[in-house]
């Protein structure tokens, strides 16, 4: 299929808006986020006011319906300044996606307008202490009691858990792959408690923590899809929204690496000339550049496929597999270019490396990505 993902005027304006927001409002808060690990809730609120939370919600439900290329453009621009805040936004979108893809008309009308306005921010709580890749091994249960399900369990590594007022939760309603169901827990439901806050090495300022569910009564009407559809709901959300979101964040990191590498190597004088004239540095620059272009193409290509309504699980997985490793690789090369300065806390390269490392296990490990890609790879036997 011939592809063209030139930005439309709307997408270009949106990209500019995200750049303005990131450079003007986010940049002054980045150091504070990294130092304290605190989430700048006022910036999250501002993103919602600007409508960044509404990008993928269809217009008929109060959203912008601007699609996946637009989403990636925004994530890239914000991540260039703060990967942590960009990741926060991508999870806002992830929390909406079970309702967008599998919600009934009634559920969409009930929640999506509030999500588009940023009044409702939902998590997508799948991972448990037993692991995220082994989805069937989760322990959280949902027991039917009349018109309700009663949920009990403990989720971990849940992004945005302390700043969200809704929770999308995968729980066991039976055994095996058809024994999982997905529920939306509405604000102020008794028994829902965000637990410990994780103290991560990177993406500091991005809220991550536990979600504890103790006898949480959820109306039957809050189940997304039918009983036993949970695995499909969760995996579709992660594949369609979670993984490309990680790609967008990684893309922003790779781009920042390229920008910082080019800028520093032209300014830094060694042996009487800018280090950009030294071949060792030139090779680093060329390698970072090719990683940027490749990450960009993989990421936008998958987003373009999604906007066309095509299935793109393998492309999203390929993008995620490549982009996060490119982000780590480029940040490491950036540190080499900066020399000793690269590991100083007040200078950016070391932060980009710490941020990039966190992406490796997000939305599925690299090994899970290989499994997803393998299915597509084997199709080429035909």
């Amino acid at each position, binding site marked *: 299929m011939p592809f063209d993902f030139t930005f439309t*005027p*709307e997408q*270009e*304006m*949106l990209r*500019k*808006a995200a750049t*303005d*927001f990131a450079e*003007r*409002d986010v940049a002054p808060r980045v150091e504070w986020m990294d130092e304290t690990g605190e989430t700048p809730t006022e910036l999250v609120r501002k993103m919602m*006011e*600007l*409508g*960044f939370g*509404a*990008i993928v919600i269809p*217009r008929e439900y109060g959203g*912008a319906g*601007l699609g996946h290329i637009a989403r990636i453009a925004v994530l890239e621009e914000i991540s260039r300044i703060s990967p942590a805040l960009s990741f926060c936004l991508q999870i806002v979108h992830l929390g909406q996606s079970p309702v967008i893809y599998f919600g009934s008309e009634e559920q969409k009308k009930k929640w999506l307008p509030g999500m588009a306005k940023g009044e409702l921010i939902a998590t997508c709580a799948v991972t448990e202490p037993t692991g995220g890749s082994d989805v069937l091994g989760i322990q959280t249960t949902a027991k039917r009691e009349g018109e309700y399900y009663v949920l009990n369990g403990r989720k971990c590594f849940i992004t945005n858990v302390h700043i969200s007022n809704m929770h999308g939760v995968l729980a066991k309603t039976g055994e095996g792959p058809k024994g999982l169901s997905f529920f939306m827990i509405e604000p102020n439901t008794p028994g829902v408690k965000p637990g410990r806050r994780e103290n991560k090495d990177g993406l500091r300022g991005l809220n991550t923590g536990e979600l504890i569910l103790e006898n949480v009564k959820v109306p039957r009407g809050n189940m997304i899809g039918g009983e036993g559809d949970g695995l499909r709901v969760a995996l579709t959300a992660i594949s369609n929204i979670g993984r490309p979101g990680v790609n967008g964040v990684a893309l922003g990191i790779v781009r920042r690496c390229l920008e910082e590498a080019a800028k520093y190597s032209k300014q830094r004088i060694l042996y009487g000339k800018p280090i950009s004239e030294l071949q060792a540095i030139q090779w680093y620059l060329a390698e970072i550049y090719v990683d940027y272009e490749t990450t960009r193409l993989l990421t936008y290509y998958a987003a373009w496929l999604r906007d066309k309504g095509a299935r793109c699980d393998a492309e999203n997985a390929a993008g995620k597999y490549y982009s996060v490793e490119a982000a780590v690789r480029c940040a490491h090369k950036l540190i080499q270019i900066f020399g000793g300065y690269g590991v100083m806390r007040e200078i950016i390269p070391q932060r980009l490396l710490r941020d990039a490392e966190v992406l490796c296990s997000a939305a599925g490990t690299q090994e899970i990505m290989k499994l997803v890609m393998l299915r597509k790879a084997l199709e080429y036997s035909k």
Partner: protein
Amino acid sequence: MVKIIVCIKQVPDPKEFSKITIDPLRKTIVREGIQSIINPLDKHALEEALRIREKHGGRVVVLSMGPPQAIEACREALAFGADEAFLLCDRLLAGSDTLATAYALSKAVRRLKPYSLILCGNETVDGSTGQVPPQLAEFLEIPHVTRVRRIEIGEDEAVVESMLEYGYRVVKVKLPAVLSVVKEINTPRILSVFGIIEASSKKINQWCVSDIDASIDMVGLEGSPTRVTDVFTPEVKRRCEVFSGPVEEAVGKAMRRLHEIGVF
């Protein structure tokens, strides 16, 4: 407030100025591949218009003159919240200097009557003449104030603060008037997703020279008394000399050197 007209211009993005080259034959700027934006000070003018509308009501109409791609700047202005946009776009306007531009804009403004206020950025980042707003006011025979950093709208007048080199002056001006603003006046809002969507349903009107009843010999190259004889990139010959030693001695050396090279 009946209507606030905001004049905007699409200009090359200053972030990309280093990529700009000069065509040695045509003596014009090569803009290919250079991102365009709304002139930064024009965004402040638009922001002020939107704030005045929020307080006093009325409509915000954007007026621009430029090539067909300037429609992007108009669309962006609508996304910021302007109600309607007009683009003067005609090959006959190509090559207009500030006088011809101000004349064409004034003819368009006359078609947009009635209006209460015209807001402009004080100057553009490409031309930097700051001449168009006062010339526009002269063509329209209405008052103007430049370098405006604060506007208070009254019944049929405005009280404005106009920045001077040292300090500012307060001016009471009858409306309608042309006010050209500086960046200190406000912080422009960031485009919102919903503004971008709404913009697609708002109207961008394109006018040519005949639509505004302008005289052909007063616009374009022919209507422009300015003649560009040469355009070149100045050679940068900056040098740095360090004078060390006790302060008085070092200052003495520096002064002698400045005399030597003819600064004084």
